[in-house]
């Protein structure tokens, strides 16, 4: 008789530390947009492998791959038609395996997408479901209804394209539920078989060695009448089951929740450390832009004051921009109006409830502002996530549809197609950026690698510096409260490390007096240049910062003079 006490060894991840993601630097990219190795105009895993050195040299430690599974590509791959394969345009499963091995060999972790909420309407599960009789197991994989009046309190997310969360299916002769595009039917998490199948998918990729998964659109898994169908207890039960499966079979893996909610609503996604390891801090991002535009720290300190404590083993994911629009769902109506006026003068820059622009154009290509915002990204409590191309200040194309304007080919050089592909330019999956300011001839990796003062080299230095100090990924945060509100000052502390960060949100010089009396006698050492500042005394500590200037200051205890060698 088989023993019930057989202990099955967990499958190790590529990282040694279970909390590796706290010290990580994520780099988000599309396989299709990064590098094309077979010159068909579409990026692929072969191209990505060739460019891994670039990511390593940048200092990123974890690659976040946007969806790369087979898909009709009506939502940039978030409409998956086969969870267990690679889209033929990007390569094969074997190519993915090779990529994963090479990435691990270079010390990189890899995060992929697990689109759990919905599939493509082309997925065999949906095709079987719509043809299956009511009440059958196949039919029950999705959320069907005879009426489109259920769950009426659920908001519509893609307001520009969808008028309802229900669509009529003429084959099934019923309405199906979809929180996103109508071609993305929601899976039915009330059916236990759905979760079972998704766990098989999860294990398929984790067995291969994937280090982390991003759970897409996670607040919307379950629907209930009389609710807004977001963040329901049943949704959390499903996430706990996913986490349990990971913890039971694997070491040092991570799941990240995409929950575009206010911090208090995101907090339950960490559970008691038994749901997601990480979750994005969505509302911080628009407020950083707002603070910059208003030259006032309040939007940032206000949202951070609303941010609850999270379990020790968990972490926020921080970003300035990503593959989607700069989402304004989690700001007030007035704030949204302000943001539209400040950051999207041309209505074409707007989409859904947000602004579809990259980092550099949002900041008018102002180097000082770009550096300032990145300094916040790297010094706030959480793990920074960079979006490919933002490290060189790539631009966008607001004339492309949907959010495709921020998903253009990576600009490697001033050569044809920006060095992304040798294909006929007409064959590219997307035109490269070609305008005078952000075009590939002006903005590209090759040029910036050769320029010691480039944004790329600045980013490399900043990332390397951040990685020297675990306090940034693991430490506590405490804001100081100087009277000059154009100055944002905060302390990060962890395991004896104390770092003071001071940022000038204004376009002109600003003075500030900081109450550092708690640190009397300590020596502030500016971290970028390792320059000692005057010792902290009993009075407020005066500093002056230039336009969009920032300081990272390590507070050091004065060392005793060198003692003489002793002999016994």
């Amino acid at each position, binding site marked *: 008789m088989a023993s019930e006490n057989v202990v099955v060894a967990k499958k190790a991840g590529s990282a040694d530390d279970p909390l590796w993601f706290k010290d990580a630097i994520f780099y988000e990219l599309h396989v299709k947009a990064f590098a094309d190795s077979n010159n068909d105009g579409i990026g692929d895993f072969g191209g990505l492998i060739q460019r891994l050195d670039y990511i390593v040299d940048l200092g990123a430690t974890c690659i976040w791959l946007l969806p790369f599974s087979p898909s009709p590509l009506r939502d940039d791959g978030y409409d998956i038609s086969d969870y267990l394969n690679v889209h033929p345009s990007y390569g094969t499963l074997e190519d993915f395996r090779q990529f994963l091995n090479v990435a691990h060999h270079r*010390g990189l972790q890899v995060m992929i997408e697990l689109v759990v909420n919905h599939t493509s309407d082309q997925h065999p599960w949906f095709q079987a479901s719509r043809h299956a009789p009511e009440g059958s197991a196949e039919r029950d994989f999705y959320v069907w209804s005879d009426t489109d009046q259920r769950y009426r309190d659920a908001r519509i997310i893609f307001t520009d394209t969808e008028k309802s969360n229900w669509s009529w299916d003429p084959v099934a002769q019923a309405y199906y539920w979809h929180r996103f595009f109508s071609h993305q039917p929601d899976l039915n998490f009330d059916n236990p078989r759905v979760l079972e199948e998704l766990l098989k998918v999860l294990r398929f990729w984790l067995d291969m060695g994937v280090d982390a998964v991003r759970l897409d659109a996670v607040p919307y898994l379950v629907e209930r009448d009389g609710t807004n169908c977001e963040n329901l207890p049943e949704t959390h039960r499903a996430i706990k089951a996913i986490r349990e499966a990971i913890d039971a079979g694997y070491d040092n893996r991570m799941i990240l929740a995409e929950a575009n909610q206010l911090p208090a609503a995101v907090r339950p996604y960490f559970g008691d450390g038994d749901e997601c390891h990480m979750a994005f801090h969505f509302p911080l991002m628009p407020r950083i832009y707002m603070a910059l535009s208003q030259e006032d720290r309040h939007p940032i300190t206000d949202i951070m004051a609303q941010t609850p404590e999270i379990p020790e083993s968990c972490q926020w994911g921080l970003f300035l921009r990503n593959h989607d629009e700069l989402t304004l769902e989690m700001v007030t109506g007035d704030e949204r109006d302000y943001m539209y006026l400040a950051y999207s003068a041309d209505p074409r820059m707007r989409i859904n409830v947000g602004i579809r622009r990259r980092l550099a154009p949002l900041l008018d290509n102002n180097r000082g502002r770009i550096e300032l915002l990145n300094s916040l990204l790297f010094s706030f409590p959480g793990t920074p996530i960079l979006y490919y191309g933002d490290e060189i200040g790539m631009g966008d194309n607001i004339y492309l549809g949907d959010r495709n304007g921020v998903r253009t080919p990576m600009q490697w050089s001033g050569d044809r197609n920006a060095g992304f592909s040798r294909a006929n330019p007409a064959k590219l999956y997307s035109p490269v950026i070609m305008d005078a300011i952000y075009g590939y001839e002006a903005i590209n990796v090759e040029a910036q690698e050769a320029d*010691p*003062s480039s944004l790329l*080299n600045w980013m490399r*230095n900043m990332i*390397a*510096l951040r*990685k*020297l*100090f*675990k306090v940034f990924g693991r430490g506590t945060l405490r804001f100081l409260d100087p009277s000059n509100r154009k100055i944002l000052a905060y302390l990060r502390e962890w395991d004896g*490390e104390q770092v003071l960060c001071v940022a000038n949100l204004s376009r002109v010089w600003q003075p500030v007096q900081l109450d550092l009396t708690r640190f009397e006698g300590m020596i502030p050492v500016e*971290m*970028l*240049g*390792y*320059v000692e500042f005057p010792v902290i005394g009993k009075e407020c500590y005066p500093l002056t910062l230039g336009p969009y200037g920032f300081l990272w200051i390590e507070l*050091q205890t004065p*060392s*005793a*003079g*060198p*003692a*003489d*060698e*002793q*002999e*016994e």
Partner: protein
Amino acid sequence: MAGIEFPAELQKRMEETAPVDLLVGVTGAVDVEALRVKVGRLRGLALDGEGSHPSRIAVAYAGVDSDDPVTVTEEGVLLARYPMPAAAGEMNLWRDVSNVQRNVLALAAGWQARACMVVYSDLAALEPETVRTFAEPVLKGGIDLLMPIYPAGKYDALINKSLLAPMSRALYGRRVRWPLTADFCAGAKMLEKLADGSRVKSEAGLLWPANLVAMQGGQINQAGLNVRHAPPGEGLDLNAVVRELVGSLFEEAEANAALWQRTRASQPATRYGDPYPLVEQEEPVDTRPMVESFVIASQNLEEVWRLVLPPATVLELKRMARLAPEQFRLADAVWARIVYDFALAHRMRRVSRTHVLGALTPLYLGWVAGYVQEVSGATAQEAERRVDQLAKVFEEQKPYLVSRWRWPERAV
């Protein structure tokens, strides 16, 4: 344990005979008869202080045969054979020694030893009094690492004196004369850390015991050891020696940047016993070939130097190349900054690492030429003080390294 696995039979015998007080691990193959004679002299050695019981000692050496891998000698000492790790190649001799040292330390950890004394395969350090000098403070006094001070004349071991020791001291904050040695004794707490060769992701580099223990906050002391080993690299050309030793120190600096950048000022490492008499060397050394190498390199390697060094240093080197040999001096501060700039270039990989280290060698010869001329009339003790002065300058210049490391584009 730290990726090192031993044959099942050896593992089993270790478990059966564990724990031991001290494992003396010989790093390499030995003349077994000579070893048995030396081991016999360890009979009754009590290392836990006066009046203590004889210590339980095991001695391990590299070797394989079909017999029991652990035997007990007539004197009651456990004698074990462990398999020799594969050689890294003839150009990586120190790495071979380091790999064997890691094996010995892993063996000690597996044997639950309270201390592990690593001795070089010439067995020179395997004498009862030496074992007592090294193991007793560790077993009795809670010392984590006891490092040797070898006898050396003023012209001996100049790579150590001019670069390895002062840079280690500046980075890791301990005044250890010989940070890379063939003999040392480590306490139980440090065995697994020292045996772990996986910190550097590629192949395990050299084992720098003092630097590793310093990073763990351990207690390091030193003791004189009156032996002179034939160094593993004897006969190798200087470039190969620099490549292996300095290259490894630079690699460690890259891997441990977050730690050494927190260390400020150095602590002394207490010395036990009689300070070993310095060796007086009267034989004059001709510095002209060194100066010539420097001058030729200043023409041939200027391109690399300009990539690695800031303009002010390159100008200083050009000035030096014009000096008469007898006036040739490389100021300590300039030398320390040169070493730090090369460590940074090694990290940045803008030039291949082989080229970087190759371009450092003639600069090292330049420093040596100046040093030799400076101490030619000095006693060994005066020369020691001169070397200590250099180490202090390395410490004073550390902020320069930290600053450049954190923001490499800035150089003046």
